[in-house]
């Protein structure tokens, strides 16, 4: 047992930067990019789904359902091989994987937006429309400002989920935490020790994010 911990200390002394600098920064970078662009794309999926133009609605429902009904790893494979073929210019693996993650996240986030919008009492829309506001004015001025309170915490949870899910990107050696594990394990052959280190880092990351999110939710509720 003590040998096990000695090994962990040795690994960390030698390779701390691989885990804490490269791994963590790639993981966080990939997560932030995914959630940010995923949220933007998610808004479009959501609006598309609520659109009055039927083919647009069907397309958005189809995308969301397919993304939610297939494994993420499979989607990453598709992104990895398909994105470079579809784009006219060369892209790095990182970008291909990020695009796959963004589409995945957008599908989930669009549902978050939709339920947030639907959580606003229909009386609000009626009151706004009865005053003569158009449907887009009602959405922008009345519904969305109230939906944000339900959407933001859920978006925070999505971010935490993404932080963990980016580990799948290690399949393509993108450079995030799980890739750090693969690299260090490959040179030291100390599997359990490396897994332990990476596990602790993931846990600390999500734990901190979770605390921040809780504090943020409390502030949102304080305004109620």
């Amino acid at each position, binding site marked *: 047992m003590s040998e096990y911990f000695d090994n962990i200390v040795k690994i960390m002394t030698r390779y701390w930067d691989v885990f804490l600098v490269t791994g963590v920064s790639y993981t966080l970078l990939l997560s932030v990019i995914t959630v940010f662009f995923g949220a933007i794309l998610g808004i479009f999926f959501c609006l598309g789904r609520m659109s009055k133009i039927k083919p647009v609605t069907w397309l958005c429902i189809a995308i969301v359902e397919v993304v939610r009904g297939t494994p993420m790893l499979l989607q990453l494979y598709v992104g990895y091989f398909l994105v470079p073929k579809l784009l006219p210019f060369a892209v790095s693996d990182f970008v291909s994987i990020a695009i796959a993650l963004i589409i995945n996240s957008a599908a989930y986030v669009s549902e978050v937006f939709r339920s947030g919008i639907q959580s606003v009492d229909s009386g609000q829309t009626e*009151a706004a429309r*009865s*005053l003569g506001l158009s449907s887009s004015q009602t959405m922008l001025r009345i519904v969305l400002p109230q939906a944000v309170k339900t959407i933001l915490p859920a978006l925070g949870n999505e971010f935490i989920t993404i932080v963990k899910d980016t580990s799948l990107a290690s399949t393509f050696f993108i450079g995030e935490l799980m890739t750090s594990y693969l690299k260090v394990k490959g040179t030291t052959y100390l599997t359990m020790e490396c897994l332990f280190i990476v596990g602790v880092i993931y846990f600390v990351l999500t734990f901190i994010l979770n605390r921040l999110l809780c504090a943020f939710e409390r502030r949102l509720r304080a305004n109620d």
Partner: protein
Amino acid sequence: MIKTVGLNKWFGDLHVLCGVDEHIKKGEVVSVIGPSGGGKSTFLRCLNMLETPESGHIFFEGTDITEADVDINVHRQKMGMVFQHFNLFPHLSVKENLTLAPVLLKKKTPAEAAEQAAELLNKVGLYDKINEYPRKLSGGQKQRIAIVRALAMEPDVMLFDEPTSALDPEMVGEVLEVIKCLVKAGMTSVIVTHEMGFAREVSDRILFMDGGIIAESGAPAELLTHPQNPRTQEFLSKVLY
């Protein structure tokens, strides 16, 4: 001012409005009474197209607002509506609730709208609440503010959808008082209500709705004391006022 011709509305298989013909004249105060599910609220909500009737026409100030090419938003600005559950905007202050629509729809500059909001709040005795948020207000206060929010658009007609049904009994009076002042000042109003005494006092005419039709219509004293229709008689025998 508002005229409906052959108004029909279904909710799924349920035929809620069965060819309603009605004419509400300028300056008239009309109360709509009747049992739940009789179509009162649906009728009222059709008048400003919050519910879209399946067939029939609604003429508001001469325009058929059921036509697809009519900009309903313009006409709604002239029809104030007050809801059972107030529906104040909780994320906006009282002042913002009152000024949002007039400013956004370019009827007034922010300064003019603020001035008007202050004036209206004064009238209903709630000027001191101008910077409060709706959550801090009682039901009666909320409803009075909902009424002046509609008035801020300077409508030609006011539609009241059971304005006191969600209120605690001790707050009903203050809201009815505001509506009374309003109709005394000559505002054309359609009021769906369960307050028989109030309907009798303020209305020029009462409509009794049941089964999706206007079963009886007449002057308050006449309709409430000598109802002709058996259904009206039955309904009135069940309500105390």
